[in-house]
């Protein structure tokens, strides 16, 4: 199959890659660029484990083609911390024990960051509905919701 050449920006870095026309952005990230932080939990856009942002918009990278990243700006979990300094969401997830196995955590963090960029002061209900597309089977979401709201409070105060 003839491969497509794609130029894009990932976590602030200019990146070029070749991909097959039917290859998802998630497969490109994981298999071609070694960015394995985004996970495939379903491949059908139901679980949110593959969440990334594209030009600031939250997307399931399993539902987008790699070729569609041409000229865009992609942000993944690997781009969330600033060097050694964790994002407040990452720090609060650790403090609240908001992860057990951790497989859904990258996707939830990316989604939660997108929420707080739009709504710095979400209610519990708004947080729950925003994250309804990110499945977590371990925590029952209690500590996840608390961590996101606590991070939001800290970021508002900062």
């Amino acid at each position, binding site marked *: 199959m003839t491969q497509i050449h794609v130029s894009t920006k990932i976590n602030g870095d200019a990146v070029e890659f070749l991909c097959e026309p039917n290859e998802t952005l998630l497969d490109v990230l994981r298999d071609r660029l070694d960015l394995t932080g985004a996970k495939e939990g379903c491949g059908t856009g139901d679980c949110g484990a593959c969440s990334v942002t594209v030009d600031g918009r939250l997307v399931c990278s399993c539902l987008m083609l790699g070729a569609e990243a041409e000229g865009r700006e992609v942000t993944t979990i690997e781009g969330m911390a600033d060097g050694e300094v964790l994002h407040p969401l990452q720090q609060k997830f*650790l403090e609240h*024990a908001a992860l057990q196995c951790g*497989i859904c955590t990258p996707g939830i963090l990316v989604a939660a960051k997108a929420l707080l960029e739009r709504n710095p002061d979400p209610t519990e209900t708004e947080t729950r509905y925003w994250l309804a*597309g990110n499945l977590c089977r371990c925590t029952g979401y209690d500590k996840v919701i608390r961590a996101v709201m606590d991070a939001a409070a800290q970021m508002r105060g900062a």
Partner: protein
Amino acid sequence: MALDDKHEAEGRVFKIVGTRPIRPDGIDKVTGRARFGADMSAPGMLVGLILRSPHAHARIRSINIAKAEALPGVKAVVTRADFGNVSDDDLRDILHNVMAHDKALYDGHAVAAVAATSTSAARQALKLIEVDYEVLPHVIDVDEAMQPDAPVLHEGRSDETVPAGMSANIMHRFEYGHGDVEAGLAAADEVIERSFKTAATHQGYIEPHACLASMGPDGQADLWCCTQGHYMVRNTCAGILGMEVSQLKVTASEIGGGFGGKTTVFLEPVALALARKSGRPVKMVMSREEVFRASGPTSSTSIDVKIGMKRDGTITAGWAELRYQGGAFPGSPVQFGAMSCFAAYDLANVQAIGWDVVANRPKQIAYRAPGAPMGAYAVESVVDELCGKLGLDRLEVRLKNASRDGTKAAYGPRFGRIGLTAVLEAAKAHPHYTAPLGPNQGRGVACGFWFNFGGDTCVSLNVNPDGTVGVSEGNPDIGGSRAAMTMMAAEELGIPYERVRTTIADTSALGQNDVTDGSRVTFAVGLATIKAARAAITIMCARAAKIWGIDADAVVWEDGHAKPAGPNAGKFPPMSLAEIAAVATNTGGPIAGHHEVNAEGAGVSFAAHLVDAEVDPETGAVKILRYTVFQDAGKAVHPAYVEGQFQGGAVQGIGWALNEEYIYGADGRLQNPGFLDYRIPVASDLPMIDTVIIEVANPGHPYGVRGVGETSIVPPLAAVANAVSAAAGVRLTELPMSPPKVLHAIDAARG
């Protein structure tokens, strides 16, 4: 230990145990650095894919792989013919589950596999494999599978416990209990008998099964995989492939959830066979559809319960008959269901009968407290109904009949020290129990029990030259157990948490370790960690004694230091662990402690759940309004992760109660193999899940720890059913209580 003895940890002031430090693997998991099953790669790696049966039941007349093998990029194709014969029954069932033999036994059953240089080549190769099937009649429902004329999966597998003339799909009959049930029922003022059904549910871990296998021409192999037990993977794969165990090194990846579903093998033997045949590393990752169709959900069940009660709430007799289909092979968890369903009650007359049944579905595998939630659902529903009929308080009745220290359990043994009454008293005193309810709202309560397990465990603890400590253990960390081990090692050694690092060692580093299951890890690995630390302390005390020129037994270990004691007290300044470690070379060499044990004394655990639900009488939809978990943890090492186990179990149970089910078509094919149609709870479905940790120390653990992971999924099916039944004004007897079923029940009750 007698029941009136004090626990060895009683009065001990813990410094680290009971606090909430950040888990050692946390930063890796919030930055994307942690490596899960599908995150590993190897030079020259091939992609492995599996061809699966589209039929629920079919004889495989022939498989032609010639065209697939000839496709450019294809490096190996394997079928059952590439595996040898296995004499052990259990191992043969596992082999026949991972690669069909003469028959495909369920929709999704593996029949062949390919390894190719790309995913697209591998997909194309699957289409070129020609399988000639003779489609056979199938059976999906457990009650239908038990009919004498039902299609038969395996002839001649029923054992001697199954009466003659019954369906060949019945593998085994279990029976537990004591006393005279008929006499007990005759003495009751009220007897209720009900029949229940529960749908098969899946563990629903977010990480699909994945592995990476390689094997050299000398037969030495490496396997990386997500599993709850890499020692089990090693032993099982070696058995299936005819290898010596020492030839196969298995490394456990970080694991993205398991809940019992990763306590067996699916891809691993196939990946090894492909690697052996191709001479290249082979990576295999299941799709979500494959996870649903071809990994192990739990049983669907059909259960009858009959209970008698006096007007004062005394239960005079309990009887249950449980029928669990375990998929295409023997081994449903009906035994645990029959053993545990009456465990919360001190009964003079009790009998539970269990039937292990096969059907044309994927082979079930453990799901969190396997078998117990369904039995508890049926029993706790009938207890609830009796309380309602006799106008009795639901928690008072449970307290009146509760199992206590020394109660003869329905499944045989006498309980040791248990915390059920403490759990029930805490629930009764909680404001949730008496909070007002609105219209169309109901409150449910239910008890749950799990045995907990110990098992084979090895821990090595190394004191490093700089005074830090490395702990090596052999159980994949599924929910924060490395933090718990680190805390217990630091507590015992008297050094800061940050100076201990715990690693999950590969199978070459330690002796046999049982799987991360049975809620065993914090108990058994924790026990071995404490004992390993004590062994290291003994050595460090001896080293200090040697330096001081006194007897080793004249040295004690306190607050991370060796101190002279007895007549020598105060004669020498204490030596810290770091000081002793720094000179270890000169006092005898490296310092380490280790402990190997088949850990016994896992304390059973009880829980009670309170839930408020609201039913929409127009649609039948149920909303969970409030939820509180009360559970005995023995001793909560890291309370945040104990709460997390309580919350996670409760929410899985809510999903089981309200939404989740395997739906089959008339053709025997699974209709909903995806997260869109198999709907697990999402954040917007739920309230916060409140938790109350009760601590009744387990005499079998130095700190009193009990397993906590599984008990939490046992009560919610019944608790939610009781709440929904109260809110709807009609008893619901079938799970899941999806909106159409609830609406139908409401309409039927209205006439």
